[in-house]
Structure formats: structure tokens, C-alpha cells
């Protein structure tokens, strides 16, 4: 059976690999939270592997949808041109505007007209793998009435007949509970996009309230960020990078990040390094500690609320390993998901990961990843951090993300 991946870490896992044909998945958002990037990302993933997509737009023009997708760094227009992406315009009719789209519903307040057009669009691609995105259920209720939800059972039959996967966007305005219950009953899967909100929205997260095909009902919320460009990323607000003096923490933060900053003096960090990483579907803020003992009193402060830790050590300086363990304790990172980045692995006299594990008496569940520098700044430059090998850095993050998730 064909699965449609969202390409969002953890969400595909919740969905047991992705969205199923002949089902309806609802991206159910609190007002103020974007759900369209989830649909765009899923759609682009499917289009890129050669599947078809029918996008029913009832909230904006199809050209606006294309521009929005482009804004996130994807090119939907190329798929529209070759015919694998088809728009059904159920919007222009609502504002009494004309449309140049192939599938244009003039009577957009009539849900039966949408059903007829949907069938027409699906007939033409009956033998293809396809998803149908409906943007949005809220607009349907607002403009076609609550009774229009009855029409969705016909859409579901169409999805079954044409082996299509339905993805519906929904904003939870203060509707009657009967309306909400109808949608819950109709949906095979519900991905809830919620907010931690005080005076304003502070953080957004997704969670699963229903997956009919695996019975999951996860209470775990996964924070996310929407990057432009980039789309939906799982957000890790704080990863700590710690380790002894001169082990290469600043080099790690600067090499891994875009636009990292350091509070340093004479080439050594005296307060913190900060950087941001977008990699493998994750969006991460890195906080690097200073290594000198005179800064130990602030380590606990810097380590507070970290979700994971990268301990950078100098593989060729075993005498500093005791200090590395001490720093883990002082920064309150013992017990957090942890990876040891064994830096200077290509330096003469460096120890192997096995020897480091023995020396540091590390348990087997803490991975040790060798890391080397591609370039080391000349002594004249002095203050610039070394450039660490990108593949090595990715190995560190891959292992840590796996542990975190």
C-alpha cells in the first residue's frame, strides 16, 4: 500500500509511516496557528516522488497558494505545468470573481458542486497515486453551512473509489460542539496543532488525537517551528554544548550553525556561544558553555531547561576527560539525552571511541562520535574557531535526534 509521508520527523512515526489511501486526515489548528505549511510539505513530498495532487482551494486563489508554496522554498508551478498538480478553484465563486483554472466551481457555496468537480478531477487520474488537499473545512462550514459536512461522506466514497488520500485543513473557530464531533467522527486521523498561549502564542506544538489505522492517541506534544524557507521543523529550543577548555565547543557551534555568535575575549568563550541549526527536519538552538573553571558558577544557569547535551572533548587530551564529566554535572546535564563529540579525532595521539569510553567510564548508551576539523585557523588569525567536518557534525546530530525522539 502506498503511504504519503509528511516528511516531518515524529509525525510520520505517529502515523506509522504516513497517510493512507482511502482515508481522511485532518490538520486541526487553533486559530493563529498555520496549518497550510503541513499540507504544502506533504504535497511537495508526494509530487517530488511522482504522485498526483488535487488541491481544492476555498480560502484563496490558486495563484496565491502557488506563491505561498514558493515562499517556503518549494516549486509547485513545475508540477502544475506537467499536470501532476491540479487545482479546484472553489474560492473565486465566493467573491464573485472569474477564474482561469481548469476546474472552476462558480457556485462555490454549493457543496454538491464541489463533489461533482472533485469526481471529475479524480476520474482523469484514476490509476495514479494521489492525495486530495482540501483548504479548508472551516471555509466550507462558514460559507456553505454546517449541513455541508454531510457531503463529506460522499467525498470519502470518492476517495475509496479512486484510491485517494484526503488531507483536510481545519481551524477550530468557536463552532458548535456538534460540528466538531461530526468532523472527529468523519476523520480517520487528526493531527492537532496547538499553542502554549499566555498573553500571546508562546510556542506551537503538534499532537495526535486519533489515528484509526493504528489506534494511536498520543498525548505527547512535539514543538514545531515554521521556517521560511524550509517549512515545518521539529523545534528543539535548547541543546547544550559543553566540554573542557580548548576542546572545540565554539568550533562546534560555529561550524554547525548559521550566524552563530560568541561572547568571547582573546579567542576564548567567556559567557556563551549561541547558534541555530536547521537540519534533518529539526530546528535547534545551540547554547555553548565556557570551559574555564572560573566560569563554573554560571554553568547551571546555562544548562537549565536544555533538552539534550553534546559534550565536546579533545580526543588527544585524555587528562581533560575528568573535567568533561565534571562539567556535565555542573551544567546539570547528567541524565539528559547525550552524545559525546570526540573532537580532534584526526590529530596524532587521539584516542579511539572505545578507549575514550573506558577512560571516561561512560555507559554504552551514550554514543561517542569522532569529529575532525576540515581547517584549523592559522595562529596569526588565532581568534577564529576551526571549521569542523560537516559529515561528522551531521553524525552527531543524527544520533542525538534519534535519542531525543
Amino acid at each position, binding site marked *: 500500500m502506498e503511504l504519503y509521508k509528511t516528511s516531518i520527523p515524529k509525525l510520520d512515526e505517529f502515523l506509522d509511516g504516513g497517510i493512507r489511501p482511502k482515508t481522511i486526515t485532518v490538520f*486541526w*489548528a*487553533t*486559530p*493563529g*496557528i*498555520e496549518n497550510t505549511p503541513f499540507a504544502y510539505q506533504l504535497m511537495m513530498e508526494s509530487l517530488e516522488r511522482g504522485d498526483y495532487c488535487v488541491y481544492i482551494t476555498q*480560502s*484563496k*486563489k490558486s495563484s*496565491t497558494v502557488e*506563491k505561498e508554496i514558493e*515562499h517556503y522554498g518549494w516549486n509547485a508551478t513545475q508540477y502544475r505545468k506537467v499536470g501532476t498538480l491540479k487545482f479546484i478553484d472553489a*474560492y473565486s465563486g*465566493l*467573491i464573485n470573481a472569474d477564474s482561469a483554472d481548469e476546474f472552476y466551481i462558480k457556485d462555490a457555496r454549493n457543496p454538491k458542486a464541489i463533489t461533482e468537480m472533485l469526481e471529475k478531477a479524480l476520474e482523469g487520474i484514476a490509476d495514479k497515486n494521489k492525495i486530495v488537499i482540501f483548504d*479548508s473545512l*472551516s471555509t466550507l462550514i*462558514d*460559507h456553505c453551512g454546517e449541513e455541508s459536512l454531510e457531503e463529506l461522506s460522499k467525498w470519502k466514497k470518492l476517495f475509496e473509489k479512486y484510491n485517494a488520500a484526503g488531507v483536510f485543513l481545519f*481551524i*477550530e*473557530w*468557536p*463552532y458548535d*460542539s456538534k460540528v*466538531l464531533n461530526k468532523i*472527529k467522527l468523519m476523520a480517520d486521523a*487528526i493531527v*492537532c496543532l*496547538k*499553542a*502554549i*498561549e*499566555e*498573553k*500571546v*502564542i*508562546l*510556542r506551537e*506544538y503538534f*499532537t495526535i*488525537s486519533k489515528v484509526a489505522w493504528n489506534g494511536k*492517541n*498520543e*498525548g*505527547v*506534544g*512535539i*514543538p514545531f517551528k515554521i521556517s521560511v524557507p524550509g517549512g515545518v521543523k*521539529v523545534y*528543539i*529550543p*535548547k541543546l547544550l554544548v559543553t566540554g573542557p577548555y580548548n576542546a572545540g565547543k565554539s568550533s562546534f557551534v560555529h561550524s554547525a550553525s548559521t550566524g552563530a555568535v560568541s561572547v568571547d575575549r582573546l579567542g576564548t568563550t567567556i559567557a556563551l556561544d549561541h547558534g541555530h541549526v536547521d537540519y534533518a527536519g529539526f530546528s535547534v538552538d545551540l547554547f555553548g558553555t565556557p570551559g574555564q573553571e572560573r566560569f563554573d558558577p554560571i554553568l547551571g544557569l546555562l544548562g537549565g*531547561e536544555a*533538552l539534550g547535551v553534546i559534550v565536546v572533548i579533545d580526543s588527544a587530551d585524555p587528562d581533560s576527560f575528568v573535567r568533561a564529566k565534571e562539567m556535565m554535572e555542573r551544567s546539570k546535564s547528567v541524565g*539528559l*539525552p547525550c552524545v559525546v563529540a570526540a573532537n580532534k579525532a584526526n590529530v596524532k595521539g587521539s584516542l579511539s571511541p572505545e578507549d575514550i569510553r573506558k577512560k571516561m567510564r561512560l555507559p554504552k548508551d551514550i554514543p561517542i562520535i569522532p569529529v575532525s576539523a576540515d581547517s584549523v585557523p592559522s595562529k596569526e588569525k588565532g581568534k577564529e574557531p576551526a571549521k569542523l567536518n560537516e559529515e561528522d557534525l551531521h553524525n552527531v546530530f543524527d544520533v542525538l535526534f534519534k535519542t*531525543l*525522539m
Partner: protein
Amino acid sequence: MMVEETTGAPGAVGITQEPVAPEAAESPAGAPQSSPDATEGTPETQGTAKPIPLNIEGIENIIGEGFPIGSCVLLITPPMIEANLFCMEFIYRGILNKEPGMIITMDHSPEDMKIKALKYGWNMSRGEQAKILKWVDGYSINANKDVKSTDTIKRISGSIALSDLTIGMSQIQREYHQVSDHYRFIFDSLSTLFIYNDATTIYRFLRVIVSKLRASGGVGFFTLGEKMHDQQIEMTLRHMMDGTIELTDDLTLKAQSLPLPTPRKEGKLELTSRGFKVVG
């Protein structure tokens, strides 16, 4: 941010454990932190800080010191009166005081509004440069203008895109939350929303955004065209807001049940080359 064991997956950790009751986990609608009413302002949360003056010349003689933080006021004007000029002066005077401003415009492009403001000496770009003036533009895309969102202007696709409108406003509220305990806003106009949406849809939308505006420290106006809507709609909107100001054809300003007591019920305004002022 909590790190707790996930259910049914020994050894695995999730990033957050959703802080909702079991029944709410089954029901997305039941999540308390997502409820539109959860952040709704109350008389207790409003009015604890000093009121925000409108800074329009002499207006304190009619409406008093100003509006408490979290006040949403309905501004009703006849079609011939340019309510957005009154509103823009309100925003501009705030910018001069380094108070952030948010303009939601459904009838004009921000570019046209800025040109119009310049005629009165109000350089709105000054606020944009200082990052204390942001726009949600619900007009330009539907008017087929070839425009894109910028750092200061979020373009949305029009009066039906209520979700995008809320997202644009929420993003600005989040930014202003970092720098100030309040901001000024104008929503111009509700009448345009009523052209494309039915009343129930707009009430639902307002329930959400008015509570967000109150909670996030917004102070400002929703404009409404006089006699453009049936009385029931106007009454409902008056009820949803914290007060009403009417501006008549002859520029008489009538204050009606505003959040704080007013020295007078009405007064006469004049539009000069530098803006509005109270003349009687």
C-alpha cells in the same frame, strides 16, 4: 518545557507531555490552552495600568484620559467620513511615543494609506523603520496587485482568509510582546468582512481575535460603516466591544459607554492640515 516518558513506548522520550486532561486529549476541541475564551480579557485584567491617551488634540476633553490596555472600541462612521484617517493619526501619535502599532487594512493598500497619511505630515515609514509599525494587508492580493509580504507588511488573500488574518495578527502580537506591554491597533474595516462572510462567521472570528487583542495588550479601534448593516449586527458588535465612538457627517464625536467614564458625551472635531483637533 517538560521531558517525560511517552505512553506505550518504554525508554522513549517525548519533548513535551501535553498538559491536558485525559478527556481533552481525546477531544481537540476541549484543550483548555487552545480555547479562544481562555485568554479573554476581563474587567479585572483591564485597567490595572495607566490608560493609553489617544494623543489627538483636545480629545481628552471628550473621552477623558484614554483607554485602558486591552480595550477594543467600535468606531462607527458614515461612508463619507474617512475613519481610517482618524485611526491612522491614532497610530501615528503612538509611534511618536515609541508605542508599537498594528494596522489591519481590508479596503486600501498600506502603500496608499501611507501616501494619504503623508498629506497630514504623518510619516508612517518612521514607525516601519523603527520596527514598531506592522501591517496586515487584506486588500492588495485580491486587488490583483503584484505584491509580496515584507518584514513590515503581511499580505493575506482577502476577507475570506480569516485564518490568515488571525495568523498575521498573532505573529505581530508575538513580536510586540517582546518590546512593550501594549500596542495600538486599527482594524479597518469590519464592514468589508460583512460583504464576503455571513454574520455568524464574523462573530466567531471576533470572539477569537478580540480576546487575543485584549490579552496581548492591544488598544484600538474596529471601524464600521454607519447604516451599512442591519441594526441587529450593529447591536451585536457594540455588545462584543468595550465601547463605541460615533463620528458623524459634521465630525461630531459621540462617546458611548467607553471603558472609562468620559467628561463629555460628545464634541466637535475639525480636520486640519496637521490632523484632527477638538474645536467645540
